């Protein structure tokens, strides 16, 4: 393995100090001259026709500068793909969920804007609410989405390998149902933005956006303006976790109000609005059947899955495919059949959440695998080791694994958690659960998909990097600075992070699927090579060498075979600037061109590179009298290829797992029978606190990905995928209670314990 100077080191994050000291500016902190404040009027009902909206009284209120409704927009629907354009900026004919924005006010201050909301009169004609997947699929169910005469928003059906033969060859088959609740996304910063329009009518949006490209494309379409008609600058973003990809009523309303008034308009939400009316994870109802040989080797898998996703399709079309696709991995499954449906409902719209729907698929597989292990008497660790995908493995659906450290991940997590010892003795109520998972490094979804990085060489020798990826707290900016420093032979401190601005950056297709490190990392290397090539051509003649023989290291530029023949980096930079009149940019792009654009409905194809792997062992303690669970320890064997920044990588692995402990045990967005949100407050929506999450241990399994930058893979989501089943299996191991419907509340555990006693 190559000896790196900056890569592989836990350097300080580029944004650490400004964030810790509170000086980082988020969207809600922004001010502009003459700025107005916007507020949204929200639907009190989950499903209703809008008969009339009378805004005249609100408009007449002193201090109110504009009031808008859905009718002020062009009425052009948008969506993730051309075949699923089923959203409007704000509703025109009907409301689809509790808390949906139906009108917006811009006023001189927040109090006035809020008071004006009370003066807007909306006539609703209530419609029956479609709350659950069962409601949606009932024969007489009303249609939720006005652009589609069906409550099935999308589907995915596929079969690979000989499934019948697989089940015939099985020595043991087990079939079970699983379900999962609605959970919120969980970022810290609520949705916020500042919109302005310049003298030429060009829009500037500065919002809390995870994927400014997705926001930009959808907004320009729905506002009926060209892409050049809108500029996006991303301020600091307080977490995304897939909850801030697309534009929301907040963003549309701010822009429209700015267009109408000609003044900057800022809207900042309260968190109760986010909890009630913005992105959540799909609710799941799934049935899985797995066949195994006597030794536990899987022969076939069959699955059916219904995701309920609220009134829009959004990224749900991909979610429903992804669930099925990732049943193929991390275990060797020769034959697989999958039937998935995404249905509309009148609950808050779903996008996805960290780990996407691999999280749910893996909960099902690894829970079922645990049950099967018990049935056939095969040890849980052996069972997973037997089925773990190896290097150069092609899954039944065509996904190709280049490098897999999974076997070693399993081995390490089992050893460090003390699995073997625990089989001979463990404290009362104590248990250990396992789950594995694999997550790709950035899928290709169609349309624009390449990554671009620009390195601007300053005349003092430092370099400013701008890239298409967005820093949302995951640490990507730091990683790219490290990579650029490594490639250019400069100290980490000499690479400065530039702005995330659509006028100067080509935004990535979106910050999803663990793509940033992998794709933009490769583009960073390409940009550094480009800059070095240009500098080498300038410097080579004076060193009496060919440009291709010039090397860059330790802040020097020299001849590879004769290192003493060289000049320092700054002299080389000055030569370019002052002698050649050549201020330089290094430009790099990267895209995985040999992966497929998979048809989400039929599922075949190699979707990705850079599959990372994880094996999580979760040690839990269950109080048998109250049913409460203490998460004692999580040990993750993690293969993220070459770690670029080990401390940040651990943060990602621990964070991804910690976030999902809430989904496993405490979190649930509750609704009543009419679709009204019941617990949109931090008082009653329970995310884990620092004392709820387990102590964490990450065991890095170093591999070298052939396509990844420096051999790295993506890292932020695998541990989210392996956590739910690890918790569920740990609880079963502790007290013999199997909970298949999330969240695993204390009450469910206690009921399970009582049922066992009665037997």
């Amino acid at each position, binding site marked *: 393995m190559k000896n790196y100077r900056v890569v592989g080191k836990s350097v300080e994050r580029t944004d650490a100090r400004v964030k810790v000291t509170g000086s980082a500016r988020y969207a809600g902190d922004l001010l502009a001259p003459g700025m107005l404040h916007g507020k949204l009027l929200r639907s009190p009902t989950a499903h209703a026709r809008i008969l009339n909206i009378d805004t005249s009284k609100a408009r007449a209120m002193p201090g109110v500068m504009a009031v808008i409704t859905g009718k002020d927009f062009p009425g052009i629907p948008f969506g993730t793909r051309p075949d699923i354009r089923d959203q409007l900026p704000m509703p025109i004919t009907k409301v689809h969920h509790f808390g949906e924005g139906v009108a917006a006010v811009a006023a001189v201050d927040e109090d006035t804007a809020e008071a004006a909301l009370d003066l807007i009169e909306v006539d609703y004609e209530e419609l029956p609410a479609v709350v659950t997947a069962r409601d949606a699929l009932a024969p007489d169910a009303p249609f939720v989405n006005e652009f589609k005469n069906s409550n099935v928003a999308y589907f995915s059906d596929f079969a690979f390998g000989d499934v019948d033969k697989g089940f015939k060859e099985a020595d043991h088959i087990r079939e079970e149902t699983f379900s999962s609740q609605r959970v919120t996304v969980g970022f810290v910063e609520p949705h916020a933005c500042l919109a302005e329009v310049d003298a030429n009518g060009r829009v500037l949006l500065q919002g809390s956006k995870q994927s400014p490209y997705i926001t930009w494309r959808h907004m320009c379409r729905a506002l009926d303006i060209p892409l050049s008609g809108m500029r996006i600058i991303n301020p600091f973003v307080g977490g995304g976790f897939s909850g801030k990809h697309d534009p929301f009523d907040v963003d549309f309303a701010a822009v429209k109000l700015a267009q109408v008034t000609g003044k900057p308009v800022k809207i900042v939400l309260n968190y*109760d609005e986010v909890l009630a009316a913005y992105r959540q994870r799909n609710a799941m109802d799934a049935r899985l059947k797995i066949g195994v040989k006597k030794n536990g080797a899987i022969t076939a898998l069959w699955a059916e899955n219904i995701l309920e996703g609220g009134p829009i399709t959004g990224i749900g079309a991909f979610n429903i495919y992804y669930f099925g696709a990732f049943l193929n991995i991390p275990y060797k499954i020769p034959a697989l059949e999958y039937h998935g449906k995404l249905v509309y409902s009148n609950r808050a719209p779903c996008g996805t959440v960290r780990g996407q729907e691999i999280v749910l698929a893996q909960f099902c597989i690894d829970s079922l695998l645990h049950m099967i292990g018990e049935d056939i008497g095969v040890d849980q660790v052996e069972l997973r080791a037997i089925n773990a995908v190896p290097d150069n493995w092609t899954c039944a659906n065509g996904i190709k694994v280049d490098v897999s450290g999974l076997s070693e991940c399993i081995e390490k997590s089992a050893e460090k958690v003390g699995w073997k010892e625990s089989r001979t003795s463990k404290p009362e109520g104590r248990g250990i659960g396992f789950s594995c998972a694999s997550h790709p490094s950035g899928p290709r979804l169609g349309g624009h998909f390449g990554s671009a990085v620009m390195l601007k060489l300053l005349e003092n020798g430092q370099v400013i990097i701008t890239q298409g990826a967005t820093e949302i707290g995951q640490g990507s900016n730091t990683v790219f600075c490290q990579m650029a420093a490594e490639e250019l032979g400069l100290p980490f401190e000499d690479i400065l992070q530039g702005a995330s601005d659509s006028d100067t950056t080509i935004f990535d297709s979106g910050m999803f699927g663990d793509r940033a490190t992998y794709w933009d990392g490769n583009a960073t290397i390409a940009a550094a090579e480009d800059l070095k090539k240009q500098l080498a051509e300038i410097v080579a003649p004076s060193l009496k060498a060919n440009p291709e023989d010039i090397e860059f290291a330790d802040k020097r530029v020299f001849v590879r075979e004769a290192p003493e023949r060289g000049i320092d980096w700054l002299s080389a930079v000055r030569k370019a600037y002052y002698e050649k009149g050549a201020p330089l940019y290094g430009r790099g792009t990267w895209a995985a061109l040999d992966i497929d654009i998979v048809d989400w409905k039929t599922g075949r194809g190699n979707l990705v590179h850079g599959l990372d792997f994880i094996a999580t062992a979760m040690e839990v303690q269950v109080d048998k009298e109250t049913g409460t669970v203490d998460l004692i320890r999580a040990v993750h064997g993690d293969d993220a290829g070459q770690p670029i920044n080990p401390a940040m990588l651990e943060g990602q692995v621990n964070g991804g797992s910690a976030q999902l402990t809430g989904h496993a045990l405490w979190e649930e967005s509750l609704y009543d029978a009419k679709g009204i949100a019941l617990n949109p407050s931090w008082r*009653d929506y329970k995310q884990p606190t620092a004392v709820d999450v387990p102590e964490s241990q990450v065991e890095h399994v170093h591999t070298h990905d052939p396509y990844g930058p420096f051999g790295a893979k993506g890292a932020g989501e695998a541990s989210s995928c392996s956590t739910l089943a690890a918790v569920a299996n740990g609880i079963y191991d502790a007290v013999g209670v199997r909970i298949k419907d999330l969240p695993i509340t204390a009450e469910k555990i206690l009921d399970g314990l009582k049922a066992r006693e009665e037997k």
Partner: protein
Amino acid sequence: MFIKRLPAFEYHTPSSVEEALDLMEKHGNNGKYIAGGTDLLIAMKKREAVPDHLISLGGIESLKGITPDDKGVRIGALTTLAEIERSEIIGKQYLPLRDAVGVMASIQVRNLATIGGNLCSAVPSADSAPPLMALDASVKLEGPEGERTVPLETFFTGPKSSILKNREVLTEISIPKPHPVSSGCYLKLMRRHAMDLALVGVAACLKLDSERKVCKEARITLGAVAPTPIRVPEVEAELVNKEIDEAVAEEAAQIAGSECRPISDLRASLDYRCDAVTVLTKRAVIETLKRITG
């Protein structure tokens, strides 16, 4: 429906109880006293309370502080939960109260919230009430018609209601000095491990004979399982004049589980709360015994 911004109000800062009472007199029904504000300001943002005048008790020095005397300890109503948490005398002699303040809300909220405010809000799940009732605390109420001191046990009348009259101020909580052979504890069951409301809260105080064997006096109180925090005399009777062991504690705990009157809501079901009362009562009794016998 959704949280709003604070409504407009006039803010008054009296420096004595008399001045506070006068201000309340003047502003009639449009005024409200405010202590730490951690309940009231949220209620105002939800428009559950829209007072035109907020009369702050925060500037009244006589309402602050923890004062031991020969009868026990007096706690000014405006003393913050954090101050109680850090108090040496509370930590040594009034363990149920120490237990409670340590598991209330968050550190930030404990720095603002006051003990008097927690009692006056009178929510069934208020954590400070069961331990103070078990410790036989009294509260002093001062109003235009003079002052009165009542046992905390008789203070609460229903969810968010108490005997406190509109213009009265709860000024002080007094707790009698504990008997040398006594102790107590407060146990709280939450959905997660911190920053949560009690699903069930149980406080126990026991006094043993000089041999440290027979229980001479027991006070058991429950929170979050009835319209008000409640004392359960049937449970206490089961413990008194007995040498308490696992079996006796279990028996008493079963009675507690059947005496409580919780509701089912989105936080927990009635059945689960009753089960938890049984479990926590037993644990509270056993823990208290341990604290006495060392």
